């Protein structure tokens, strides 16, 4: 009897393990696959640095997305907010403002967009989809107004250094991504507001009955997301040495994808920063690896979509299991 059930139990255990660690396994498999295809290139310092550099801005914006998704919402305006912040910083500097002022104003703009999202969702009871879709539309319009439809450039070298400089031969945006990720992780894990966000994401009613100020917590989550998105946008402008109304617009979709990918990492199936970073890693490794193998860009897009579907399906299975 025991002998008969053992393989079935082992199969179930492997299935559960794959379900639990599916995203991590996927990342490892991708790394092994690309390393096997190009052992001379893929895991070299230059290429790993390339991957980190390419995903650093996405990691920051995905961090912002994680905060709102922990609360059980999502923010469609993170990409547009980052573009607007970059454009505002650029326009300020071109207008002669000192760098610190340009960055401060851009951060303030991000904060305000986040605050507006928060008010619409937490206090005026709009759904996150409608509210952030609406703000995204307006924010893109503002970005076009700020840039006058052109690409702003000729920023001070010190500003560009934020995005293009290196410390210990590692690009500075990688450090920014690391520091911001650690801060968001710590806030989510160790602070009262972080626990409140988790509680709201788990069950709004129970949180309310437990004394959590749900409205204020959701407002704060969207405000933080706006601010962090603005940091990403400012760094993107510094990294490219230019700012346009739509630059980095793909970060919205990829940030949601990264969070969904990350939701499969932990048992609860909820958004979490560690998982999001693994999701960002999958997106970065896949894009870099497929580029190195010379895979057609359209096929890359198809593969990215399939990976997102798989991740969401895994996440759904996990939630059902829970």
């Amino acid at each position, binding site marked *: 009897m025991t002998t008969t059930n053992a393989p079935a139990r082992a199969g179930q255990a492997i299935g559960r393990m794959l379900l639990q660690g599916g995203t991590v396994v996927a990342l490892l498999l991708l790394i092994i696959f690309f390393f096997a295809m190009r052992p001379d290139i893929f895991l070299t310092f230059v290429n790993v640095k390339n991957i980190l550099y390419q995903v650093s801005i996405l990691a920051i914006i995905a961090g912002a997305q994680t905060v709102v998704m922990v609360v059980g919402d999502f923010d469609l305006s993170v990409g547009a907010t980052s573009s607007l912040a970059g454009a505002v910083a650029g326009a300020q500097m071109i207008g002669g403002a000192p760098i610190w002022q340009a960055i401060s104003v851009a951060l303030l703009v991000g904060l305000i967009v986040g605050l507006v999202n928060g008010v619409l969702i937490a206090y005026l009871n709009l759904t996150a989809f409608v509210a952030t879709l609406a703000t995204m539309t307006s924010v893109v319009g503002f970005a076009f107004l700020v840039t*006058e439809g052109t690409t702003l450039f000729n920023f001070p070298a010190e500003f560009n250094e934020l995005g293009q400089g290196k410390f210990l031969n590692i690009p500075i945006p990688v450090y920014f991504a690391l520091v911001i990720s650690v801060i968001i992780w710590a806030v989510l894990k160790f602070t009262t507001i972080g626990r409140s966000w988790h509680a709201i994401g788990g069950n709004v009613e129970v949180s309310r009955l437990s004394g959590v100020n749900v409205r204020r917590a959701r407002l704060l989550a969207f405000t933080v997301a706006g601010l962090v998105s603005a940091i990403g946008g400012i760094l993107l402008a510094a990294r490219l040495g230019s700012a346009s109304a739509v630059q980095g617009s*793909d970060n919205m979709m990829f940030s949601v994808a990264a969070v969904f990918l990350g939701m499969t990492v932990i048992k609860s199936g909820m958004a979490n920063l560690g998982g999001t970073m693994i999701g960002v890693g999958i997106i970065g490794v896949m894009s870099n690896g497929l580029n190195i193998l010379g895979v057609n*860009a359209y096929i890359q897009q198809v593969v990215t979509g399939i990976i997102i579907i798989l991740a969401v399906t895994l996440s759904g299975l996990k939630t059902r299991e829970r």
Partner: protein
Amino acid sequence: MRNKFKLLVAAAAVVALSLTGCAASGGGEADKPFKVIAFTSGNQTPVGAWWVKAVTAKAKELGWDLTMIQGDFDFQKMNPAVESAIGQGADVILDGYTDYASIGSIVSAAKDAGIPIFAMDSGTEPTDAFVSNVTTDQQGIVDSTVEALSTELGGLKGKNVMIIGHDPHPGIRMRAGLAEEAFKAAGANIAGGEIQKVQSPATGRTEALALVADYLAANPNGLDAVWVGWDDAALGASKALAEAGSSAKVTGVDATSEAIAEITAGGNFLATIEQPWPAILDTVIGYIVTYQKDGTLPSTNFETVGTTLVNKVNAAKITPSDKL
């Protein structure tokens, strides 16, 4: 009696002549202003934004009754708006930078209403959709950029050249294809074996940057040149080359102020192309004015004009396309 008869004949002649005049003119009754519907989907690009302002100014100068429709690259919004304006009547339609493939319903509505469509840079091949489409010479663009790279590299035989294109844009698609043919004919190797495709113009710069950075990571010193279909992506390619310490050269198309600044600085960005949009608009407006006067349509429905290679030598004299 004879005088009365003469008066009657004279009056009849005046009426007949005026009727003939009406029939021969392009539209616009004497007491009504000439009605023009202008539309563009590319108003959010710098050149598109210039076009909207320039056409509005020309219409004011010529006393036209202008309806300007800006599509924001959203054909679902733009096409019905133009069709609705056609329904209210117009003498001519002016299309700026919108490929005929995207405006089939507008073309049908205009044909049904008997209104001619004049266009600029709205397709790379002749089409019955327009009575006139004036655009730039794609082969000329390719010839001059390929020659600039050939001169800089001391010939193209055996050189590794990456071509970056974007298929949804007909002009870029056409010139990228022509560039591939030209490089192959000159004996160059096409990096990656085919044209590398950017998916969205909005993220063209970061996509091109990643494409070139990843290619160089896999093939250190593997590029001698990068030919790019437009300046924004060319700037991303140029940045990737500079960051990798490569001396490969880049060419773009558009002559944006940022590209011109890079060319002047003497880095990887070798040259770009200036397309004479103000002169092209003047030509198209001239055709419309002629049609307004006597109903004469241009002799050909497709016309290409030459472009200027912008390099370090003439960069200072060029008006950037985003500062028109």
